[in-house]
């Protein structure tokens, strides 16, 4: 029996994980979202294999703003580059920004929100005033301040993992400006969770504050955090565009956001070049929608109230 017992806890955990995954993967929304996301990740991982090297004005072959055809499935842009080629090559940057910025904002937002809600008192007061400030401050102002500092510190044209340094500035800026919303939501949720009796119990049985936050509060916040993550993703892809023009973008490596703004500046809307406007937009929409769907499914799966109670 003792041997049996020893094996129980890991098995219990595996069972929990399995059950969670089973339930999660059965969700129609989660399926659609995952398939969509995996598709884009594959696209982002091997653009050259899919559509060949990135086209620039030098090796562009198409006509100016040609509508979709057999040769250019998604038409061409104003310098004759194949839009499909640009989209596929833009996926890497857009996805990197969206994912990393989301992670940053979720980590910062959850930490601040949780600390603020859990400790209360002056910790709460000050953290929330800071949050309010970031809530009000638009991302580009922050970018104006951070950019030169970071560029000064890190040098102007270094590369990390094949990404320009300025990309990380963008990610940092987006992360820093979008966490405040997450923090507010997490805090309000934490306030109600910390009043639950099981937190008191955890304290009485000697758990430290950190362990209470990580093991008791955080799991109960997962739905909120997941749902908000999806929103940050949607925002990040577009905020990147506006930040690009503060000197953070690389016109040689267009992201989806940059493509959209190029399309806008080329007058695609009034010249009726719907493919040029539509393609990057639909891609961005699909990525953020898949995050929303996954977030929703996480919410459904994690929410005990939505689980059938025997």
């Amino acid at each position, binding site marked *: 029996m003792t041997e049996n017992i020893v094996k129980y806890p890991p098995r219990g955990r595996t069972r929990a994980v399995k059950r969670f995954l089973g339930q999660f993967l059965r969700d129609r929304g989660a399926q659609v979202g995952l398939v969509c996301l995996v598709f884009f990740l594959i696209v982002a991982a091997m653009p050259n294999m899919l559509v060949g090297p990135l086209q620039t004005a030098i090796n562009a072959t198409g006509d100016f703003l040609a509508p979709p055809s057999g040769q250019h499935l998604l038409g061409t842009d104003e310098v004759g580059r194949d839009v499909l080629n640009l989209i596929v090559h833009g996926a890497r940057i857009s996805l990197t920004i969206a994912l990393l910025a989301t992670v940053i904002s979720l980590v910062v937002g959850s930490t601040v929100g949780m600390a603020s809600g859990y400790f209360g008192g002056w910790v709460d007061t000050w953290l929330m*005033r800071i949050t*309010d*400030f970031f*809530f*009000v*401050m*638009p991302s*580009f*102002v922050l970018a*104006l*301040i951070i950019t*030169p500092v970071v560029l000064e510190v890190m040098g102007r044209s270094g590369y990390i993992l094949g990404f320009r340094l300025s990309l990380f500035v963008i990610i940092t800026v987006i992360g820093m400006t979008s966490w405040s919303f997450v923090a507010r939501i997490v805090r309000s949720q934490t306030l109600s969770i910390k009043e639950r009796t099981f937190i008191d119990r955890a304290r009485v049985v000697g758990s430290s504050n950190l362990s209470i936050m990580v093991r008791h509060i955080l799991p109960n916040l997962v739905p909120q955090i997941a749902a908000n993550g*999806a*929103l940050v993703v*949607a*925002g990040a*892809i*577009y905020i990147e565009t*506006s930040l690009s023009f503060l000197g953070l973008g690389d016109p040689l490596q267009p992201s989806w956001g940059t493509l*959209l703004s190029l399309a*806008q500046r080329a007058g695609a*809307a*009034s010249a*009726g070049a*719907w493919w040029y*406007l*539509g393609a990057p*937009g639909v891609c*961005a*929409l699909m990525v*953020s*929608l898949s*995050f*929303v*769907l996954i977030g*929703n499914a996480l919410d459904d799966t994690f929410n005990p109230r939505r689980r059938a109670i025997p």
Partner: protein
Amino acid sequence: MAGQASRNFMSRRLGLALIRAIVTLLIVATLNFILFRVIPGDPANMLLAGARSSVTAEQIEAQRQNWGLDRPLFPDQVVDYLWASLHGDLGYSFKFRGRQVADLIFERLPATIALVGLAQIIAILGGVMLGLYAGWRRGGAIDNIATVSSLALYSTPAFWLAMLLIVTFSTVSGWLPGYGAYSPSASIASVDRLLDYLKHLALPVAAVALGLIGQYVVVARAAMSEVVTEDYMVTARAKGLTHRQMLMHHACRNAMLPVVTLITLNLGYVVAGAITVEAVFAWPGIGGLTVEALNARDYPVLQGIFLLLGASIVAANLLADLAYGILDPRVR
């Protein structure tokens, strides 16, 4: 007796919330001011951006003095700024020479308020009603349609939605004007002009409203589907109320609590809520001003806009607190 207590209680709430709001606003204003001063780039350079001939050091100094840049940032400049702001004096614009920042902002404010305000009203009416109904009939056809489409709208950025709307309703079909706030050809006569204005308002309002509707549907639906499981709804059913009466008298008010929070938080953005949408539609609101000021690094104007934005968000938070207190007698 109970009334007396609750009145005391409300005034205490109000007082606390007010103090918090004022403190937040002060901090926001101060940091705002300091941040714009520490941004690299000499403001004197901005001031003399247009200078053609060589500029003497004396002239630069004169400009610095003129704009109060020669004095210590803290506390002198900050205090002056806060004191002036308190009197509604936000200083002069770098770019729009001779124009007071406050003037510039208030000139643009009506257009933005018309746009975002109308969009909010439409989104609130449409989104909240749709969301409440979807939550009430959770799992039904309307719920499914509303949920899926609101999720899609939720994740569609306003900027792109705006361009899509222009291409569809303006460029291709020509049904509605896609840009600006009035058609150049409209006569000055008032009725025509109003009609024309409304026509121009249609697409931008749609772009902002559609994005918001998604948000409201999601929140209202969640709130409602929680309320219908509450025990007091069973009480209402036990009392023999019709579905309509249950929905109107019991469910809606309770479900509105989180929705009201969202509404008031969003109200804070009425002032500067639609920068990208305004830019796409060439709507002459605060958004356009922000973009222009940003391009010219017109810090006084940017500062003014953020102060206004900060004030309205703080005010909206205050309102949210109070509205919550009125709607929900339980809150502490």
